[in-house]
C-alpha cells in the first residue's frame, strides 16, 4: 500500500537514492524530502507523513532534539521514526529508543534493498 514517507537528510544524494527507491518500489510510496531539521518540522506539520526517516547528524537541529520536538506536536497516533546515520553510536541509539523510535539504519552499511525492506516492515506493523 502506498504511504507518505518523509526523508530528512542533508545528504542530497542519499536522499535522492532512497526517494527513487521508495517511489519505484512495488508500493509506489509518496516521498518528500527535507534537508534540515527546521524544514523537516515544517513538512511534518504540513504533510502528516506515515513514516519519517531521520538523519541523526544534521546542522541546525540535531536528531535527538528533532525527536523531542515532534513529540511536543502531540500527533496521535505518533508518527513512526526510523533514524539513520553513518556510524553506530550506541549512546545516541539508546537515547533515541527511549524517545520511541521504531528502527535504525546504518546508511553506508545497509544496502538500498535492505533499507527499503525495513521501512516496509515497519509501515506494515503500524497497522
Amino acid at each position, binding site marked *: 500500500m502506498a504511504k507518505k514517507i518523509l526523508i530528512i537528510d542533508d*545528504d542530497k*544524494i*542519499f536522499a535522492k*537514492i532512497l526517494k527513487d527507491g521508495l517511489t519505484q518500489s512495488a508500493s509506489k510510496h509518496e516521498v518528500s524530502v527535507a534537508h534540515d531539521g527546521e524544514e523537516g518540522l515544517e513538512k511534518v506539520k504540513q504533510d502528516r507523513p506515515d513514516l519519517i526517516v531521520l538523519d541523526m547528524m544534521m546542522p541546525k537541529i*540535531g536528531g*535527538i532534539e528533532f525527536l523531542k520536538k515532534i513529540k511536543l506536536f502531540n500527533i496521535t497516533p505518533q508518527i513512526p521514526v526510523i533514524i539513520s546515520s553513518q*556510524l553506530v553510536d550506541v549512546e545516541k541509539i539508546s537515547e533515541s529508543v527511549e524517545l520511541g523510535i521504531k528502527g535504525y539504519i546504518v*546508511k*553506508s552499511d545497509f544496502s*538500498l534493498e535492505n533499507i527499503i525492506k525495513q521501512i516496509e516492515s515497519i509501515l506494515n506493523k503500524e497497522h
Partner: protein
Amino acid sequence: MQNALVTIIAACSILIGAYSYWKSKKLSRDIVASETELKSRMYELSILKELGDKIGYSLNVQKIVDVITGSLNQFIDYSTVSYMLVDPAKIVFKADLQSSVSRQFVDDIKNRMRDSLSALLDKKLDTIPVEEALTGAMLKESNEPVRSFFNIPLVIGGNVVGVLTVAHIKPGLYHEEEMTILYKIVNQASQAVTQLEEVVKTEEGKLNAMVESMGDGIVMTDKDYRVAVVNPAAKFIIGLPNKNDVTIFDFIDHLEGKFDIRGKLEESITLGKIFSADEVAIGGGFFQILVAPVKGSHGTIKGETVAGVVIFHDVTKERQVEKMRDQFTSMIVHELRSPLGNMKKIGEIMKEESIRQDKKAYDEYVQMFSQSSSDMLDIVNDLLDVAKLEAGKFEVSKRKANIKEIIEDRIKFFDTTSRSAKIELAGVFGREIPVDVLLDPLRISQVLSNLISNAIKFSRPGGRVFVQAFMHRNGQDLEREAAEAGISWFKDTENKLPNDYADTLVIAITDTGEGISKENRGKLFNKFEQFGSGNRVDKPKGTGLGLVIVKGIIEAHGGTIGMVSEEEIGSTFYFTIKS
C-alpha cells in the same frame, strides 16, 4: 774524710732510691692511665658504633641515651645510672640500678637532676609531671645516701634536652679523669646526633622543596593516616589552596566518593600494594591517581612500611586532546562513508535493467556518482594537505600569475551558487594591483573558493559578499588605502598590519552574514575544532579542515591571514601576499 764519703754515698743512694721509687710510681701510674685510656676509647667507639647501627635516621633521644647508659658499666662503677629528658609536656626519668639502693636514694637523684636541669635552663621545673621508670636491681630499705655523683648535660642542636647522672653510695669514687672522659664521650655522641639531625633536616628540606615544586599533587601520610607531607599542587586539586593544616578528611570530602583514598592507603600500607586509577574526575579536571607504600631505607626501619603516598597526576589536557582526536576521527570517517555508501548504492541501482533503459534517470545517476566520488576525493585531498602541513612537507608552486583574473574566475564559478542563495557576489579592486604576482594559482584559487563558499554559506538571503583586493605600500595607512579603493570592510583593531609592512597585496572577503562569536574566533584555524551556525546541536557537514589548509597555503606564501567579525553583522577574512 771517710764520714763525708759515707754521707755522700748515703745521700746519693737515698736520692737514687727516691728517684727510682718515684719513677716506678709514675710508670705504674702511666700504665694505669693508658689502660684507662684504652678502656675509655673502646667504650667511646662502641657507643658511637651502636648509635650508628641502632638508630639510623630515627633520632629518638631516649634511644640514644639508652645506648650510652647501656654499656656504661663496662667502663665505670656505679650504683645507679639515670637520665632525665625534658619535654614541654612532661619529664621522663629513667634509672638503671646496678645494685640495690633505697627509695630515698632514687628520690635524691631525681631531685638533684631536676635541680641541675633547672639551673641549666634557668627555669623552674617543679610543676611538670615526672614519668618514672626503674630497671635493674630492686629497691631495698637502706640508709645509704648518695655519696658520689656527677651529672652530664645532654645537649643536641644547641638545646638542653636532658641530663645523665651517675651516682654511687661510696664516697669520693669518681676521679676527674674518668668523669672528664665520660663528659667527652657524651659530648661527642651529642655532636654526632646533632650532625645527623642537620643532615636529616637538610635532606628533609631538599625533599620538601622538591615536593613543593612538583606539578603533581603529592600527599604522604603516616601509618595512622595523619598527613605528613602535602604539596601546594595537592591542596589546589582538592580546592583548598590556602588551607594550612590539611587532613585526610579534607581529601575524603573533596573526592566525594569518587576515589576511596583512605581505603587504598590502608591497602597500600598494610598489604604493601601499589594501586592506580586512570581517570578520576575531580573538580572539573581528570586525574590519574597512584597510591603506594613508603618503606624505610635503612637502620631499624629498613624494609618496614613507614608511610603511604598518594600522587595526583593531571591528565585533563591529555584526555581532552584524546577526546578531540576521537571526535575528529569519527567525523572524518563519517564524511568519507557518506559518498562511499552512496556510490555503492548507485552502482547497485545502475545494474538494473530498468534504469539502463531510462536515459534521463541513468544520466542523473552517473552525475550523482561522479559528484560523490569528487566529494570523496576532496575530503581525501584535504586530509593529505593537513597531513603534509603537520609534517612540515607542504609546498606551493609559485609562478607569475594574474591575481585579478583568478579572483574574477572564482566569482564566476560561484555565480550560480550565490544566485540560488540570493546573495550578491562581486569583486572590488584597487587601482594599482600588479598584473603578475608570484603565487601558486591553484592554491590561491583554493583559498578563494574556501573563503567565498564560507561567506555564502553563513550569509542570509539578501546578503552581500565582496572579494576585495588592493596594494599596500610601505609607510601608507592601510585603512586609507582600503577606503581609496572603495573597499568597506570590518576594521581589524587587534591584529593590525603594521604600516611599514613591505609592499603587499591584500585580499579580503567580506560578508554580511552572522559573524563569528568571540569564543569561536580562536578555534577557526584549528584542526580539531569546528563550529557551525548559531544554535546547532550536532556537527555540521564537512571536515572543518578548509580554514586550516587556507592558513597553511597563505603561510607557505610567506603571508599572513586574519579575521575580523561583528556578530550578526558580518565578517572579513583577509590575507596578504608579497608582491
